[in-house]
């Protein structure tokens, strides 16, 4: 029993990274007042480009670690560009954000699929990045497996949570982001450039979503396929609600959902006669249940979430 639990918990941290990064990115978007439902599409593009670079360099064989780094960097840049594009649509042209996000999602997933079939084709795997066993600490029974034997990116992602908290709550830029998401008119009259701040938040969010996708393809699955993302982008958006737009609570949510997902891999490997599909369903059901409990009391939500800002319009 303890072995099973250790196994499930030790999967939690590495498997939660993609959700975590995408959610933190989406949190910055929403704190600035933009509801970006295209997260899924950005992740797909990030996953594709992240996998393409090490694959093209090594033809599926071993490559220098730097190509993986380059893959992550390319995914972040591409994600930021897609965030910029979404900004043009929703900030400059003030298109309705929900439906535009669906468009971005279809565009991203479709483009990633098209390019993947041409440049890679079929299921090709890449070596990915190795786990790092932290000396001494990783040899502690139980805790060593759960906390101290994962890949470098997972550690970096978790180190980013306090950084994200600091950026959002302790820096002038974070204050600007929160101001334009809460009351853009007041922020505007204080001399904050609302559009610019929203653009910056969208680019940061996009870059993080791209990184999340690249993590899935480079570190987690070590391959790309059309179903690689399978709703993680949407779950990431839901996690922001669940985490009340706060990095630490989002981390808790990401771990909870990942735990629900590891359940499914565990059932597969143990060969219990529990319907596999029900286990796959579990995280999605959990999202709906959680949203039902948290959506009503939205006192913590950014008050201008989803509302385009128009300087020339009286409200």
């Amino acid at each position, binding site marked *: 029993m303890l072995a099973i639990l250790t196994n499930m918990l030790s999967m939690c941290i590495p498997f939660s990274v993609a959700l975590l990064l995408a959610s933190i990115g989406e949190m910055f978007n929403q704190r600035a007042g933009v509801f970006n439902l295209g997260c899924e599409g950005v992740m797909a593009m990030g996953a594709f480009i992240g996998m393409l670079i090490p694959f093209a360099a090594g033809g599926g064989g071993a490559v220098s670690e730097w190509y993986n780094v380059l893959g992550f960097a390319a995914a972040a840049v591409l994600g930021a560009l897609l965030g910029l594009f979404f900004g043009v649509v929703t900030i400059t042209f003030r298109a309705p954000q929900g439906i535009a996000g669906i468009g971005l999602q279809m565009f991203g997933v479709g483009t990633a699929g098209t390019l993947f079939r041409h440049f890679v084709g079929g299921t090709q795997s890449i070596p990915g990045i190795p786990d790092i066993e932290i000396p001494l600490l990783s040899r502690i029974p139980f805790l060593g497996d759960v906390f101290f034997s994962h890949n470098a990116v997972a550690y970096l992602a978790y180190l980013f949570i306090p950084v994200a908290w600091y950026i959002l709550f302790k820096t002038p830029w974070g204050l600007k982001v929160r101001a334009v998401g809460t009351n853009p008119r007041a922020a505007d009259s204080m001399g904050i450039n609302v559009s610019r701040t929203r653009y910056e938040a969208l680019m940061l969010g996009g870059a993080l979503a791209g990184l999340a996708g690249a993590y899935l393809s480079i570190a987690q699955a070590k391959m790309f396929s059309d179903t690689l993302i399978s709703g993680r982008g949407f779950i990431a958006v839901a996690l922001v609600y669940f985490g009340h737009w706060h990095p630490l609570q989002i981390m808790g949510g990401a771990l909870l959902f990942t735990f629900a997902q590891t359940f499914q891999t565990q059932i597969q490997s143990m060969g219990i006669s529990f319907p596999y*599909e029900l286990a796959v369903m579990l995280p999605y059901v959990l999202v709906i249940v959680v949203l039902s409990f948290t959506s009503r009391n939205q006192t913590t939500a950014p008050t201008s979430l989803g509302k385009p800002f128009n300087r020339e319009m009286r409200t």
Partner: protein
Amino acid sequence: MTRSFKIAFKIAIILIAALAAVLIASIILWMIGADVGATFYTICIVPLTNSLHLTEVLIRAIPLCIIALGITVAYRSGIINIGAEGQMAMGILAFTGVALAFPSVPRPLLLPLALIAAVIGGGIWGFIPGILKAKLNVSELLSTVMLNYIAAQFYSLCLRTIYLDPAEQGLGAAGTPQSMRLTDNVWIGRISGRLHYGLIIALVLAFLIFFLMWKTTIGFRMRAAGAEARAARYGGINVAFYVALAMVISGAFSGLAGGIEIAGVHRRAIEGVTNNYGFSGVVVALFGGLHPFGIVPASFFFGLLIYGATLAPSRVGVPANIVQVMQGVIIIVIVTAQMVLSNTYFQDRLWRRISHRMKKEA
């Protein structure tokens, strides 16, 4: 401003979206080194060249049309239904369940009964996000997406267990997860080739939706709730009720589309029937200007694209995913162009300029 000017304005928006989609798709095609002209020829022209292809286009247009009609009802009522994929799957499950349970009931009774089951199946799957939105303020965008994934898993669970064809059962894990061929008491007849009478049903439903939304009180209230919820509430309209109702109708249409697809084309429940129709339906609804009479031609156009794209891999070596790219671009451009161009100041200025010039010429 005349009526014809307004209609021309709307058509202009849609043409801009189509052009942008072609442009961006061309860039991606150029990136993968495909012959751009030949690809568009394969996708848009080849399917029109013979009746066999044309039939396939129409078969795909039928579910698209019905789903888009449902999505229009929801969209006009201020709730975006992107869960048509799941609602369709639940409709198929309900339809197949009835057909498998009563194989010997005569056709005039069984076919309507099974279709009603499909409507109820889809309706329930639409009711869940509707009521969550109305009562608990849960974002319908998130809940419908999650319900899609749940329905997809539930669908394959049913196909693998209780619906599984006894002939496949013996094969164990090697068998295809599908139900047995349904009794011909639930089949929808065919006009010619594979084209079935669902086409007529879709056209009738288009008129029905036009009548419901623009000629009845219920439709007016739903549209009012969608246009400006606060004003509608002030006018004594129970907004929560009509939002939930719109979602139920929307789900019911998706479920019905699933039932008709099974009864007309596949005649057994099998994986992959939903074929992304749910998401394409959103594009069709927007492309058709959220109006039944626009949706009918729009669904034909997207039936063409979707079928044309299935020809593309073998003929010009372009992945079928290119259609998804175009659909995404079309959504983004339509909503953006609507926002920019429906600016009343802009519209007014354009109208004045045009009418001024027309007077001068006269």
